[in-house]
């Protein structure tokens, strides 16, 4: 039985983080994750996922699971018994037992690697570094806080994916959903063998065992070869930072991109081409005059062939415009203060960039990436795809793209162990996809520096030949889908905002209308009051008048008033 070892690498490197411990779980349980519930769990413990009862929900399952595992990890040396756990858990004893048995069966608890491995191998943390190949060690986040039993439990988010989720009690041998999703995008023939899909990769790895003289690391993405001694190689990084023997000259190094050179463009020609393109933009007649040795068509196609060709063209336009507008020196100031501080003029800058391009260009011209030749039939689709991804992701921002890409890669990893290894070796792959998009986005606003970065990242991608195209494409496709989804979300959000805005306008209008009405009513009531007051005055006036008259009558003929009849006759006669 083989076991993967999971651990936070920090515990190796820094002793001041005692929180991290080493836990061993069997490799076949690598699907386990604190954060989510895997298909295996869903299938084995259906009762929690059919929504049949409030007492059995995925949330409750997760709490059970997390609690049991954390309890076990409080002291992994002893055997955790069911009776010990159940006193702390609310729930049907049989279901608890089932969960417990399930976890035990998968080695998430009570897994004793010493049964499977020689004890020596386990108790040798000092040799860990060497054993990296054998043990897969992974840093993981802790269990969700709610279930913590110990001060700092460690968690595991596994790593080595099960080739395809093993389905228990289901003879149908289904696949994980994630895998399916990716499959629909680019179907690898179901009969494809491991070597069909990954042979390319394996071969390539063999080829690329070039060790850097300076940092002693493998040169993953191309290397520089000392022209006088083919056995001395430098990795790209060391070369750029000047980490090489002082008595060797920069010129004597040649970039080898893991491929043979066979282009009829010489260094000088490419340099010339780039220079003149920078100078004249897309005025190809002028460019051709400058290059002399090549035809107009050659120049164009060469530039397009360069990985950053069209981007550079775009940047040239922008830059030219920019310079036109802002004059000579201070022009770039706003956009790239860092550069200007170092006292470089745009001219310098572009010259430097030129150099950069030249180098890359050389790499290209001397050694058109193997990939392009080999993969001619799909590479077009691939690059189109990449561009699409870049464009979409440009619209939605790098972080979203990065997470989409990550999700895609995770899905791929679940599908096949080999892909994990690949992506592990080259973690930056994702980064670079996101990077491209970021730089692209930035470049729309900013200028030369970004351009340069962009160019580099574009170059880096082709150099990263380690990932088989199919995988890359699938990752890219999945990323694209994710990115598109995010984009759609953005659009939807925008639409929603629009609707909200409209609704609020509507409401506002209604409110205004009401306010007007209110004002009108108020005015009316004011008028009413006024009239009411007038009426009152009038009434008072009348009353006093009448009083006066009565008084006069009284004073005039008081005696006669006593006689009712006379009064009546008098009033009637009056």
């Amino acid at each position, binding site marked *: 039985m083989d076991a993967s070892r999971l651990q936070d690498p920090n515990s190796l490197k820094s002793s001041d983080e005692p929180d991290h411990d080493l836990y061993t779980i069997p490799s076949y349980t690598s699907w386990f994750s604190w954060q989510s519930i895997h298909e295996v769990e869903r299938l084995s413990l259906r009762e929690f996922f*059919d929504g049949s009862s409030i007492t059995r929900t995925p949330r409750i399952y997760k709490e059970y699971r997390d609690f049991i595992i954390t309890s076990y990890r409080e002291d992994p040396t002893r055997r955790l*018994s069911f009776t010990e756990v159940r*006193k*702390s858990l609310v729930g*049907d004893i*049989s279901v608890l037992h089932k969960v417990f048995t399930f976890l035990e069966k998968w080695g998430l608890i009570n897994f004793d690697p010493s049964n499977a491995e020689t004890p020596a191998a386990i108790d040798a943390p000092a040799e860990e570094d060497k054993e990296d190949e054998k043990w897969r060690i992974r840093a993981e986040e802790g269990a969700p806080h*709610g279930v913590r039993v110990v001060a700092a439990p460690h968690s595991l988010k596994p790593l080595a994916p099960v080739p395809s989720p093993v389905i228990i009690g289901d003879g149908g041998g289904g696949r994980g959903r994630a895998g399916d999703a990716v499959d629909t995008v680019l179907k690898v023939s179901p009969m494809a063998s491991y070597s069909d899909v990954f042979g390319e990769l394996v071969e390539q790895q063999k080829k690329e065992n070039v060790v850097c003289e300076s940092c002693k690391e493998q040169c993953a993405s191309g290397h520089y070869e000392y022209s006088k001694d083919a056995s001395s190689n430098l990795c790209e990084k060391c070369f750029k930072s000047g980490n090489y023997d002082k008595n060797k000259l920069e010129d004597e190094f040649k970039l080898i991109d893991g491929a043979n050179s066979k282009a009829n463009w010489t260094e000088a020609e490419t340099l010339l081409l780039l220079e003149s393109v920078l100078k004249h933009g897309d005025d190809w007649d002028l460019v051709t005059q400058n290059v002399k040795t090549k035809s107009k068509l050659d120049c164009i196609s060469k530039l397009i062939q360069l990985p950053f060709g069209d981007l550079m063209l775009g940047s040239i336009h922008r830059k030219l415009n920019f310079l036109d507008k802002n004059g000579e020196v201070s022009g770039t100031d706003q956009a790239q203060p860092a550069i200007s501080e170092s006292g470089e003029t745009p001219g310098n800058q572009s010259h430097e960039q030129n150099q950069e391009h030249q180098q890359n260009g050389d790499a290209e011209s001397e050694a058109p990436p193997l990939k392009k030749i080999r993969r001619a039939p799909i590479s077009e689709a691939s690059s189109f795809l990449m561009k699409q991804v870049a464009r979409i992701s440009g619209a939605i921002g790098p972080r979203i793209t990065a997470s989409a890409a990550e999700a895609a890669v995770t899905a791929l990893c679940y599908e096949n162990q080999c892909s994990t290894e690949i992506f592990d070796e080259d973690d930056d792959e994702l980064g670079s996809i996101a990077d491209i998009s970021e730089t692209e986005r930035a470049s729309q606003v900013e200028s030369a520096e970004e351009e340069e970065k962009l160019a580099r990242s574009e170059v880096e991608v082709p150099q990263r030949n380690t990932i088989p195209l199919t995988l890359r494409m699938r990752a890219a496709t999945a990323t694209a889908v994710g990115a598109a989804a995010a984009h759609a979300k953005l659009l939807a959000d925008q639409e929603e905002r629009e609707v909200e805005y409209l609704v609020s306008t509507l409401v506002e209008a209604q409110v205004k209308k009401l306010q007007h009405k209110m004002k009108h009513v108020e005015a009316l009531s004011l008028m009413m009051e006024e009239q009411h007051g007038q009426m009152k005055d009038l009434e008072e006036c009348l009353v006093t008048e009448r009083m006066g008259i009565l008084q006069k009558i009284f004073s005039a003929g008081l005696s006669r008033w006593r006689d009712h009849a006379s009064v009546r006759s008098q009033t009637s006669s009056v």
Partner: protein
Amino acid sequence: MKPHSAWGSLKNPVKFKIPTAENLVPIRLDIEIDGQRFRDAFSWNPNDPDSEVVVFAKRTVKDLKLPPAFVTQIAQSIQSQLTEFRSYEGQDMYTGERVVPIKLDLRVNHTVIKDHFFWDLNNFESDPEEFARTFCKDMGIEDPEVGPAIAIAIREQLYEIAIQSVASARESRANKKGRRGMEHLSASKIGSPALDLVKLFGIKSSVVRKRRDWDVYEPIVDLLSNEEVDALEAREERIAR
């Protein structure tokens, strides 16, 4: 067959059955003839032919070297308990969504067991025997009689609850009330305290118990000395008279 048919459903009544995977009847014997007392407890498959009962009784008497008078007594006792069980068969029982607390408090020979846990009446996959086995293994109980005793104790309680469910189902049918009413009625009528599931399993509460509750649900196993056992038995006998 649906994958989760093993679970009772909320809406429909189930036919009477001990709510476990195997429908076994807990049988308890306590027979005294001429001052000789025979006590035993075991589970019986109600689908076995009744002729087995007599065979079993004879065999037991022979194995335990009991007086032959016990044969008929044992057979009768088993038979009557089986008949009672069968009288419930075929009747509806509303389990609703119920989880009941099961409390164990028993002594087997020198071992005293106290325990407290929950049992889901809708889980027709549950297995008291398996539970008892795990219990004995985890608690390091060596006495082979303890396991079956635990399983039977659980079965007896479940049997009791199932009978109550049948009774309440019958009653509610008589009342001709709507289903909602019936469920409500059955929940309130049944004497045994069903648990407040929403409180226990709702979104707000964690299924991990608070630390202070752990003791309540922690199984306790005690091994008694011979003297203690004797004293206990003497006391039990006194109470019985």
